[in-house]
């Protein structure tokens, strides 16, 4: 029997440690040819998406693209990774945010997008543009809608609401001992509504000339109506799953629910044609129906050592390969292709509530502007929480948010 001495044991352990350290996986280095690129996606819930994006990457012959599928808090993971050299070369981003652009974390993609710029949904492309340069390529558009159960509205003698007042009234009438009128999320709409009520009142978060867009009595008025929903006990609160999941709606816990377009196939499967969709209804004479739209964008890391190869890859995938874009948007989940020409061609989006959703996104879609920073969003969301749940004075709360927005605008414009 071989006796292992202390020195040999220590040497072996040291070697093992070194080998382990050298084997740390950065996501680079697949089996193909060309430069190695690491591409990151957040974890999509729809089965098949991961296999699809791996198939796209494998079809690219000019670089060896390795896909990383990242579960968990993707935004924070990428934010942390972009501070280091071991982050991705290509990644999808819920943005990019202005601070990310200003600190050089993402590369300029203007020359890639310019030839087809007009073919993108302009509402979702606008927040990807800073100082006339494009910093991300929208992949697929998502929007949110008001789903309503036709039979429940009919039984209660309620028409699909066309104004915020009608929404408040309908939610109250639809509320019974077992069913609530409306589900805006377990926090009463604080998280999901964002700027939607302001847009419905004809206002905005940031104006086109770069000022706070809700310094107007109409803002306080519409938020007071959202508070009324809470006071009337018309809102479903504390459901096992939140607004993004249609479970509460299909299980009959609520007659109306604010949720995403992605929930539409699940709702259609459960309820057949016993449902319809609406935009968030308008408020006041200057108001307009509204739906929020947004898109994850494909971006190239500013710290990538393969910037040229990475840009060439994103152009190939998100500009040239329209077949892959169509497949990505509609074969697994349910999203609107970011390119208008592709959205028009999509068979699944041509009829019923899906066609309505596409129309709402095109006619009434708004996206959070790039100048609306995370600090603004947090301050506004805190104010919304105090208005809806605590009955705080909307005017006082909004004045405090306006001060924050002004300070943030000064900060980001100084850079």
């Amino acid at each position: 029997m071989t006796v292992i001495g202390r020195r040999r044991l220590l040497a072996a352990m040291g070697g093992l440690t070194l080998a382990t350290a050298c084997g740390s996986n950065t996501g680079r280095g697949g089996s193909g040819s060309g430069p190695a690129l690491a591409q990151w996606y957040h974890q999509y819930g729809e089965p098949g998406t991961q296999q699809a994006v791996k198939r796209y990457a494998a079809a690219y012959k000019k670089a060896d693209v390795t896909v990383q599928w990242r579960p968990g808090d993707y935004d924070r993971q990428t934010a942390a990774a972009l501070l280091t050299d071991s982050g991705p070369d290509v990644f999808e981003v819920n943005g990019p945010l202005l601070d990310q652009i200003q600190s050089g974390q993402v590369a300029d993609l203007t020359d890639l997008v310019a030839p087809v710029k007009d073919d993108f949904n302009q509402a979702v492309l606008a927040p990807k543009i800073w100082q006339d340069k494009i910093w991300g390529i929208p992949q697929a558009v998502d929007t949110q809608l008001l789903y309503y159960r036709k039979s429940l509205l009919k039984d209660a003698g309620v028409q699909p609401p066309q104004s915020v007042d009608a929404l408040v009234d309908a939610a109250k009438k639809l509320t019974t001992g077992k069913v609530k009128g409306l589900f805006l999320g377990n926090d009463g709409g604080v998280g999901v509504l964002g700027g939607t009520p302001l847009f419905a009142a004809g206002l905005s978060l940031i104006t086109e000339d770069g000022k706070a867009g809700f310094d107007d009595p109409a803002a306080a008025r519409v938020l007071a109506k959202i508070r009324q929903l809470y006071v009337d006990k018309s809102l479903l609160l504390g459901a096992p799953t939140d607004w993004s999941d249609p479970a509460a709606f299909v299980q009959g816990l609520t007659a109306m629910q604010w949720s995403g377009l992605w929930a539409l196939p699940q709702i259609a499967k459960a309820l057949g044609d016993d449902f319809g969709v609406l935009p968030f209804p308008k408020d006041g004479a200057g108001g307009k129906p509204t739906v929020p739209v947004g898109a994850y964008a494909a971006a190239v890391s500013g710290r990538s050592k393969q910037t040229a190869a990475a840009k060439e890859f994103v152009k190939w995938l998100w500009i040239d390969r329209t077949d892959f874009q169509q497949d990505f948007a509609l074969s697994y989940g349910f999203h609107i292709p970011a390119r208008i020409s592709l959205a028009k061609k999509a068979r699944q989006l041509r009829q019923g509530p899906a066609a309505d959703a596409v129309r709402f996104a095109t006619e009434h879609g708004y996206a959070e502007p790039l100048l609306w920073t995370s600090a603004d969003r947090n301050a506004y969301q805190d104010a919304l929480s105090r208005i809806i749940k605590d009955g705080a004075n909307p005017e006082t709360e909004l004045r405090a948010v306006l001060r924050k927005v002004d300070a943030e605008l000064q900060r980001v414009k100084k850079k």
Partner: protein
Amino acid sequence: MSARTARLLGPQRRNLWFWVFVGPFAVGLGLFTYVPLLWSVYLSFFNAHNTVNPTEFVGLGNYTAMLGDDAFLGSLGTFLLFTAFIVPATFALSLSLALMVNRLRFAQAFFRSVFFLPTACSYVVASLIWKLSLFNGVRFGLANTVLGWFGLDQTAWLSTTSPPWYWLVIVTVRLWLQAGFYMILFLAGLQRISPQLYEAAAMDGARPGWQVFRHITFPQLRATSVAVLLLLVINAFQAFDEFYNLLSDARGYPPYARPPLVYLYYTALGRDQNLGLGSAGAVILALIIAVATVVQARWFGLGRKED
């Protein structure tokens, strides 16, 4: 071997082996704890958005911004309220459990294990059970089912601020998770009390029960009680997991029950990525914890020799 080398290695090369075993951990501690800590203090004097490298010196700017931030001050208020609930509640519950288990003549080990077992459960898992099964706001949540038996309306436990039922959820989950651990500390303390003291008290006519507890047991548990109180306050300061998992969603976190660590998490590591400001907040919080601990320790005379 030179005399100098021999001295460095120590008798029987003890110094060498000391460093072989302790060295890697000391390096790890320095690298992953003290270097980031010092870097964080350094960063707190700079503007650092989306970077861990200082970009612009702002002096005490981040500190004044943090101390003038209503949301941060509000988070300290949340902590104080939480401490006011959780410290006495855990203290009383764990002491009561310890007294009960200590008196058991049989199955003591079984009950000790039963009460200690929740300590092994993750805060995240317990929070999700509390949120999704026990205290969800719909009619089939356990708490609402019980309310239904008495003909009461269903309650949205985590979503209503008046009355603030969310405190019930937050406090009970932590009580369930930590009372068993402190019970073990009190049990150890109880078992150190000399039986002769109780015998002497009985001889002097002390009535068993409250009188014995007040004049013998509780004073004898002084050292354990002080340690438990210190640990409870520090743990309350570090509250994060149950708050975050009970109240946050993909879009954010409500302002009404946001402890300081959750606020700093969103400031520094959230989409804000304001690492300079977050560092300043972390330094302020660390100082508050240090001062509170020292004051509390002095107040209770921690470490002072028993008279």
